[in-house]
């Protein structure tokens, strides 16, 4: 009898523990979950320290900590760490709050962090996200869409270069992304090699560029350096050529990945190696860094770059005195002028945006930090230290005045076109990349079969359309 009692008591205790543990687990989720959607936006966030938030409070952040999630800078790690300390110190002087910077090494790491934070309704207050990822971030509904008031807290919409706001949200009145820095495409070319071949400047059409590249190929030098195996680069060329030919890839609720313009773009991109032979055959295994190394050692005449972060490396390389920048061609393959409906995209709208989490209990403080980060002083500093282009109008004017050689890159930034603002873009981009990855074996064998390419495009089209159909 007594044993029975003990067992019963223990069983009850066990069940109680389980129930307690379970409620504790869900408990930590639910209060935030139910409060957050409106709570943290509206003054009604009664449990937050800033419950009586008013703009004035943003300067009083004593004892608060803001967490910023930002990509680790692979090239300037030490400088970035120092910058973290400086920003935190300056912000503490200004508001009393400290800033805790957390870094991620890869896009998938950031993706996982965002996913877990969205589900848990807690995590970093501020994220620095790539421009092409902003639509996906927007589609989670987890980030603050800025009101006019919010914009004024970050220093006003006017302070940003208008083009950089092109991928902040689906419309002018619904924007989650605050521009942070910019890094458009540009093409570096070796003036020495071009002069020897009697070419005075790079062509402005893709066909023209290939013709020039053929002239430049020979004696161990190739016309172009291309990173076919890079995990980020190739789709950008496909997108640019398709856009120039009039195909935005996603138009409303319709995907156009299997469009003839896109097939032509892939054929051109692979043709440089397979049929034109203006690219080093080893480049089927190259990432961006390896293509950069080929150009930097004088073994390639043109280097179309999808990022500006290579500039500091080039300026200390063997070709440092014989290279210049130009715009990438803006006339699609097979054409001599821009066709009807085509857009002379010089680049995707590239760079980084800042998004503020809805669950953040320190949103005003977060906006104050964003203001600091996008103000002239910090934008100047980031440009000089990390080689990223400013998004602040004042800063960019100063940079233009002081560094005329950057002209083509600034032109590329001005002529850049935003990728479609769709929650399906991440999937579509992956599908575009997948076509390249699956074609590389054929490319290595020296011939790309059109029928096979077409079937890969059909599969990519299906992926993109399925993803689009899911969007509410």
């Amino acid at each position: 009898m007594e044993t029975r009692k003990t067992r019963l008591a223990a069983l009850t205790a066990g069940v109680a523990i389980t129930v307690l543990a379970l409620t504790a687990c869900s408990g930590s989720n639910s209060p935030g979950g139910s409060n957050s959607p409106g709570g943290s936006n509206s003054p009604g966030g009664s449990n937050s320290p800033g419950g009586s938030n008013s703009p004035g409070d943003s300067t009083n952040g004593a004892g608060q900590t803001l967490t910023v999630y930002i990509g680790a800078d692979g090239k300037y790690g030490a400088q970035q760490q120092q910058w973290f300390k400086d920003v935190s110190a300056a912000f503490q002087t200004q508001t009393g709050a400290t800033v805790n910077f957390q870094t991620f090494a890869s896009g998938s790491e950031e993706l996982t962090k965002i996913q877990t934070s969205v589900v848990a309704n807690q995590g970093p207050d501020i994220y620095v996200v790539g421009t092409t990822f902003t639509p996906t971030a927007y589609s989670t509904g987890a980030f603050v869409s800025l009101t006019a008031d919010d914009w004024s807290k970050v220093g006003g919409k006017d302070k940003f270069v208008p083009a950089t706001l092109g991928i902040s949200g689906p419309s002018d009145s619904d924007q989650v992304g605050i521009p942070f820095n910019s890094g458009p495409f540009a093409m570096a070319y070796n003036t020495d090699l071009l002069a020897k071949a009697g070419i005075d400047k790079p062509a402005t059409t893709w066909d023209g560029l290939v013709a020039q590249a053929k002239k430049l190929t020979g004696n161990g030098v190739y016309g172009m350096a291309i990173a076919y195996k890079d995990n980020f680069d190739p789709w950008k060329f496909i997108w640019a050529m398709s856009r120039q030919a009039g195909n935005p890839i996603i138009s409303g609720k319709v995907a156009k990945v299997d469009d003839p313009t896109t097939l032509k773009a892939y054929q051109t991109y692979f043709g440089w190696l397979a049929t034109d032979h203006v690219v080093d055959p080893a480049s089927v295994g190259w990432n961006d860094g390896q293509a950069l190394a080929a150009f930097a050692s004088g073994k390639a005449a043109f280097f179309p770059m999808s990022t500006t972060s290579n500039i500091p490396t080039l300026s200390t390389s063997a070709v440092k005195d014989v290279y210049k920048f130009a715009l990438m061609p803006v006339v699609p393959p097979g054409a001599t002028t821009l066709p009807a409906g085509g857009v002379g995209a010089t680049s995707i709208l590239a760079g980084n945006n800042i998004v503020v989490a809805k669950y953040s209990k320190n949103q005003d403080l977060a906006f104050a930090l964003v203001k600091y980060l996008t103000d002239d002083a910090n934008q100047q500093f980031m440009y000089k230290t990390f080689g990223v282009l400013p998004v602040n109008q004042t800063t960019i004017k100063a940079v233009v005045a002081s560094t005329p050689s950057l002209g083509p890159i600034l032109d590329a930034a001005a002529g850049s076109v935003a990728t479609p603002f769709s929650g399906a873009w991440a999937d579509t981009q992956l599908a575009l990349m997948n076509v390249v990855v699956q074609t590389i074996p054929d490319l290595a064998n020296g011939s790309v079969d059109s029928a096979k390419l077409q079937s890969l495009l059909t599969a990519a089209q299906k992926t993109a359309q399925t993803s689009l159909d899911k969007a509410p």
Partner: protein
Amino acid sequence: MPASSAESAGQSVPSGLAGKTPSGRGGPTANVRHRRGVTASNRPLWMLIPGGVLMILVIVVPILLGLYISLLTLDQYTLRQWLSAPFTGLGNYIEAVTDSPLLKSFWISLSFAVLSTAATVPLGIAAALATQNHFPGRAVVRSVFLIPFVMPSFVVATVWRTMFQPDGVIVSGLHSVGITSGLWLNGPNSYWTLVIVEIWAAWPFIYLLALAGLQSVDHDVHEASALDGASWWPKLRYVIFPYLKGPVALACVIATLNHINNFTLPFVLFGVPAPEDVQTLPFLTYITSFQSFRFGLGAAMAFSSLILLAIPLIIYVRAVKLDVDEGADK
């Protein structure tokens, strides 16, 4: 709560110990009666409760959550309010089986795992036999054999990826002896790259368990077979191998499961998007869930693969009667 569980634990302290502690003075008689009364039907099963609770929290709850997620249309649009994501029933399962690369990935995973295990077993046993008898430097050789096993998968994959580059040491090495090998990190060869690297990294596991099996061979057995004049092969075949059967069969099951579950190796070797030939089950589930944001479909894929893999596994375990005692008896 911890205090009360400590109290109840205190009651179950063996009487000898309880009698020695001053505080246990009140209890000894009750405890003695308890001990005497313990029978199969009267075992203190409630003592399993902490372990049971832990299992529920760590295993059962996540599985049920996963099962529930697999019935939802959970994606980037519904992630934030995931509990109220639209219910789709078996829709994800149907899509996973009929309209996704799941079945292809299943065959890739299974063949990759079986091939890797089949190749590592002779290697591991041979290495164990080679280091069985004492020779100078045996300890060093045994340690060296373990290097691939103790290296983190990430490091192994990164180093091999560098070596398999089109202008890397492997391609140029093969080229210098007149073999044009083509690409290793893209296309059909990538599958063999995955198998080769997995074999390199995983054979010491078989070696370890085979070594453990060899240690259990009695010295008398060696002596007896020597007296009978058995030459090396019959001795190996009829005397030594039966001892190894149990441990190696167990090693095969564990190794095969490890191969199937290996995510790091293909992920680091090939990156995303991966060549079609190396899209293993964990890789596909990862891409579907965390790159394409289709968490419901990803969960359905994970469950489908669990079922698909459980079938051959159960058959195998039954077939080899995986019981170490039984194996050793034979």
